[in-house]
């Protein structure tokens, strides 16, 4: 689905001014902690939306490393100024939704977004 639809589903605000809302997103990954983001090493980054509460620059650096498609902040959080600037430099669209992470994941999953990584190998 397009980032534009995600924005609608989640009543989200586009934080990075002229983000490309036509961007195609197929997968979701939810993480509040940077360490978990490393699991994305196995995923297909560019089509992945990172769903997170991390508002610091570390989230942009991590997204860079895995070439993530876009980031959405949950729970009404907003990125810091430094984070915003970095996102603009790196052309990563940032959205923000008032919904909590559980609700955000739920709605996106219901609308067809699939997990970036299915499950741990020995699960």
């Amino acid at each position: 689905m397009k980032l534009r639809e995600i924005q609608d589903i989640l009543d989200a605000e586009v934080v990075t001014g002229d983000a490309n809302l036509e961007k195609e997103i197929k997968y979701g990954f939810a993480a509040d902690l940077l360490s978990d983001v490393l699991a994305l090493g196995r995923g297909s980054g560019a089509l992945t939306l990172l769903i997170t509460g991390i508002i610091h620059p570390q989230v942009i650096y991590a997204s860079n490393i895995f070439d993530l498609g876009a980031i959405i902040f949950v729970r009404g959080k907003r990125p810091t100024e430094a984070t915003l600037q970095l996102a603009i430099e790196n052309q990563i669209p940032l959205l923000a939704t008032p919904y909590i992470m559980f609700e955000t994941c739920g709605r996106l999953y219901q609308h067809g977004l699939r997990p970036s990584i299915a499950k741990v190998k020995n699960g």
Partner: protein
Amino acid sequence: MTVSDIVNFFGLKIRTGENQLNEEVTGGYASDLLSDVIAHSRKGNIWITIQTHPNIVAVATMKELTAIILTGGREPDPETVQKAEEEGIPILVSPLFTFELAGRLYQTGISGMSPC
């Protein structure tokens, strides 16, 4: 829906609290930031996280959460298991990652809270 229903439906493995699964679940809460869970979770919520250290038990007890589900194949620390047994908090584990587990739970009718 009770914790037990969720365990059965999703094939979750039980690490502690086999006898405390009959509570009715009021909603789902996904967060790895303890301060956030303390601030926004509601009594009876089932908590999804990757945090494995003993403080998660203190938080679950404080907020009267029905259970903790660790995702991404994570396992609770031994101290966490011990504490959870003392406090009677069920700890469940899933190989699925947070996004998918929350998504599937949502589809069974468990809701997130209203927007903050």
